[in-house]
């Protein structure tokens, strides 16, 4: 550099200590640690270079502390694992020794070297390069101070399944304010659909519904159902979240759940009931299930006549005594014509009726509909104005809670931590075409069976075939549908073996049918799980170790006529078996929610390849994400059973509490700064900052970074044309040194 301050690399006052970790044999088996140490000794400014089995242990850290205290070193390099793992540990040790913690740099020779390199020689060379880079860099480190920011004490929990419920209650019981946002009309999630839970066979409703009502009544919980998180901004301790309240068409605050509107509704009654997996039907206005929380109905705009046809149609079944028989028959004919899509005729008839009885509302309505169908929108609207028919639900509601003109609303809240508990979805059975789901009526998914065995389900707990009456005499349960299969999902869904056993037990108990379990491996690793499996063996349930090859209905013998035949190899017997059954249950696996990707982006967290939200560390930080202040609970992170989900929800709640309870967050001091005398005020940086942390000083006409807003991405530094902007911990100097160091020697 041809300038006034030509820098000298060899600082006389810099004394670097290099500590190379063996990490047991994790590093030492691939990297010749001794060679690296010898190499480091010859690097500029290095005064100490040594090795140790476990640098992260107390004894290892103590070496650093002692060397600093004795004045041998004043810059510290630890060559060990990833900084994402132990940077904080060693910074603390450095500080403990008595120097600024940021006089420390880490060389990642485990994750980036020993674990990924085939040859020892190559690994050693790469480790040397990384150590040299750190040595070069550390001499440019400066003393920095940590930043502290206050934390908003409120917590947002996204998702109201058992995970979200548990997390919300834990935090609320600790006296903190919780917002629980659920996108369905009720909380409860998948668990609310189950009848019994394995292996104890507790009634799911009995253990879940009390928790649901606790959530509803807890003074510290604000429950928003049928609402979705729209946008998240801010950072740990200070998130701003916008929640969208979807159009429920019911005022949830005043609805008392009396269901008078449901009784009054004359809308189509054949809408498949989502809660019952389409095994029963509901009306456009409905309560998802009797114990729904909040106990508030919802109007489905896709089927309600108000939205599909502009209003409730005339009800000819009710008393129309004030009409003359002639008018009544005219009205009936007009309606028939309308149903037959003969709009011209309808129009003619309604005009005729209107001539004799101009105030008649049903006719006016029919008239309007016809006009609408004919595309005469303006005329239809005009006529509709004259229709005074109140929608029946509106009329029936004693509280006036029905609001068919409800609009979407947005609430904005401030929270310090967010727990994501968005759960899973089950695998769609029709994706494994060989099992004929949706082709053969009597192939069911396990979730459908859960509803069938549920006492409050569509059949009152009767297990019947799709015809709604026949009890199956034989049932096959196919495991691993949509799991352990490269055509769908590679992973094991963890819960299917156990719930299949539970269903086998329940089916056997309720119907006495022969039950065949087709499994690849029986996975029952949980408290009391293996015992449950043993119990089933005693119950005379058939276990066939073999993945079902296909479900088919071609016959080879009389006994197979009219049955579904499951073909599989019984691998323990080494024979192919054809098992004719009345009912096939697909034990479908668990999958990430369809919109997991969208949610991930909203919260700026990561997904695994399969789409499960990624935890910060699989073992040591299982509920943390890579974004500070956002935690994971339950099956959104991976398939989980109820005990694990509840445990994890507790863990997430504890993490969130730990964050908000201390009241402040520590921030890396890696913010950008602009040196006043170097800045020319060109303003190229201003527009780049995503956090509006850079502004122009109105007097000096130069750019200024607000360190409280800066998150430390460094994009302004990369852009700054005159090198006036720099980033703490990542100055140009430091990175140039790192580049030189990483290439200079090996």
């Amino acid at each position: 550099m041809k300038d006034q301050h030509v820098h000298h690399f060899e600082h006389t006052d810099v004394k670097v200590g290099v500590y190379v970790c063996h990490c047991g044999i994790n590093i030492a088996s691939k990297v010749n640690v001794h060679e690296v140490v010898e190499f480091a000794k010859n690097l500029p400014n290095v005064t100490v270079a040594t090795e140790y089995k476990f640098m992260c242990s107390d004894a290892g850290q103590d070496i650093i502390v002692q060397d600093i205290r004795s004045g041998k070193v004043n810059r510290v390099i630890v060559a060990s694992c990833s900084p994402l793992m132990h940077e904080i540990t060693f910074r603390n040790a450095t500080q403990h020794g008595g120097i600024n913690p940021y006089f420390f740099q880490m060389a990642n020779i485990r994750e980036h070297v020993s674990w990924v390199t085939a040859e020892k020689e190559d690994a050693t060379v790469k480790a040397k390069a990384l150590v040299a880079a750190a040595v070069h860099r550390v001499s440019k480190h400066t003393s920095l101070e940590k930043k502290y920011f206050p934390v908003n004490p409120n917590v947002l929990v996204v998702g109201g399944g058992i995970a979200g419920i548990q997390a919300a209650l834990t935090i609320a019981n600790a006296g903190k304010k919780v917002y629980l946002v659920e996108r369905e009309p009720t909380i409860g999630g998948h668990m609310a659909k189950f009848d019994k839970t394995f292996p104890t066979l507790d009634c799911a409703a009995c253990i879940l519904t009390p928790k649901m009502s606790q959530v509803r009544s807890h003074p510290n919980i604000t429950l928003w159902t049928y609402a979705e998180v729209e946008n998240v901004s801010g950072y740990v301790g200070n998130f701003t979240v916008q929640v969208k309240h979807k159009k429920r068409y019911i005022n949830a605050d005043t609805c008392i759940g009396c269901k008078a509107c449901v009784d009054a509704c004359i809308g189509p009654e054949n809408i498949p009931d989502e809660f019952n997996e389409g095994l029963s039907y509901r009306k456009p206005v409905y309560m998802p299930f009797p114990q729904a929380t909040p106990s508030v109905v919802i109007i489905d705009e896709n089927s309600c006549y108000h939205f599909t046809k502009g209003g409730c149609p005339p009800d000819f079944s009710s008393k129309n005594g004030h009409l003359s028989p002639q008018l009544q028959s005219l009205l009936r004919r007009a309606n028939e014509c309308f149903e037959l899509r003969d709009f011209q005729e309808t129009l003619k008839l309604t005009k005729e009726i209107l001539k004799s009885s101009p105030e008649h509302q049903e006719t006016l309505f029919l008239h309007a509909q016809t006009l609408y169908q004919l595309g005469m929108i303006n005329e239809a609207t005009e006529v509709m104005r004259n229709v005074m028919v109140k929608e029946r639900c509106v009329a029936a509601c004693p509280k006036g809670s029905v609001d068919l003109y409800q609009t979407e609303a947005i609430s904005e809240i401030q929270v310090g931590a967010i727990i994501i508990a968005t759960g899973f979805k089950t695998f769609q059975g029709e994706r494994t075409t060989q099992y004929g789901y949706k082709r053969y009526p009597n192939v069911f998914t396990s979730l459908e069976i859960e509803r069938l065995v549920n006492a409050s389900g569509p059949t009152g707990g009767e297990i019947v075939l799709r015809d709604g009456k026949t009890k199956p005499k034989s049932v096959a349960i196919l495991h691993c549908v949509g799991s352990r299969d490269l055509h769908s999902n590679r992973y094991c869904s963890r819960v299917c073996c156990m719930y299949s056993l539970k269903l086998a037990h329940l089916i056997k108990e309720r119907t006495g049918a022969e039950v065949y379990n087709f499994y690849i491996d029986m996975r029952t690793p949980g408290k009391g799980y293996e015992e449950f499996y043993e119990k089933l063996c005693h119950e005379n349930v058939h276990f066939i170790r073999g993945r079902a090859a296909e479900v088919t209905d071609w016959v080879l013998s009389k006994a197979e006529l009219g049955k579904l035949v499951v073909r599989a190899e019984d691998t323990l017997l080494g024979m192919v078996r054809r098992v004719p059954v009345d009912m096939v249950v697909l034990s479908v696996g668990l999958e990430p929610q369809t919109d997991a990707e969208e949610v991930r982006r909203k919260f700026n967290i990561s997904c695994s390849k399969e789409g499960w939200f990624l935890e910060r560390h699989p073992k040591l930080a299982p509920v943390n994400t890579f974004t500070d202040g956002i935690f994971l609970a339950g099956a959104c992170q991976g398939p989980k059973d109820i005990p694990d989900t509840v445990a994890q929800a507790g863990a997430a709640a504890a993490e969130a509490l730990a964050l908000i309870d201390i009241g402040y967050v520590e921030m890396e001091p890696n913010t950008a700064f602009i040196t006043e005398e170097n800045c020319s005020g060109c303003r190229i940086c201003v527009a780049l900052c995503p956090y509006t942390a850079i502004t122009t000083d109105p007097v000096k006409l130069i750019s200024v970074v607000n360190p409280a807003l800066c998150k430390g991405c460094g994009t302004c530094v990369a852009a700054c044309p005159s090198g006036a902007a720099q980033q703490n911990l990542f100055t140009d100097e430091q990175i140039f040194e790192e580049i030189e160091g990483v290439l200079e020697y090996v």
Partner: protein
Amino acid sequence: MSYLYYPGCCCSMKASGKAYEESLMAVLKKLGVTLEELKDWNCCGATMYMAIDQMQAFGMASRNLALAEQQCPNKTPELMAPCSACYVVMNKTKHFIEDYKEQVGTPIRNALKEAGFTYTGKTKVRHPLDILVNDIGLDKIRQHVKKPLKGLKVASYYGCLLVRPYSEFDDVHYPRSMDNLMEALGASSLEWPLKTRCCGGSMTGTVEDAGLRLSYIILNEAERRGADVVVTACPFCQTNLECFQQRIQRKSKGGISDLPILFFTQLVGYAMGIPERELGFHRLFVPFHFSPKQVVTEGVE
């Protein structure tokens, strides 16, 4: 629309699938598709060659792919292979050259280079069913139907190789394309689960009982479900299911009765009103008669 035509040994004018070729030509001509025969094509190697020397088998098949490129230098050659075995073998070769570059790709490319070819891998291998359903389209076929096959119950039999494992135009477990085609002709297509089950074709000549057993299962099920005719897309399946019917009847002690086995192109041609002789109906062992009596008179519904 024009395609390169790869007849294959079974479909060529001299072999068992002659009727397939005749009907295919007639139908495509009617639909305005032009074909150009692949010059000096050689046997694809079929399933047999693989058993002796896989690399040579890939070599054989790849020569055809390279010939196609040579013949169509300026566009993507679309090579129509009517026989399922040819179709799968050539597609497999294409995939193996790409998927196993070191083991297969490089030696094959070298060999082709030695023989004076430049192989880029752009040749597409197509099956007539794929072409009829996806390129020409059912709408156009519907327009050409002169004699709707109303009331005819057709069991569409795809055979094992057609939709497995390298073709991409239909579901491997439960294909629908041929069924849709049959419905476009006015026939009613039978829902049955054996659409892609092996007919035992390659076994019948050698381990006869095993082969016949597999054919029996298919014929029996089609008959049980009331099929009037089975249509197939592979010369091997057709020969197997048809020519050995008498023997199967004997073996199964009358378990099945005569069931006509047609190539799907024959039935397409028939519905289009092409004369039976041009469609090779005279070559059938089990004659096919479609009596209009079977037609449910309209208006009852």
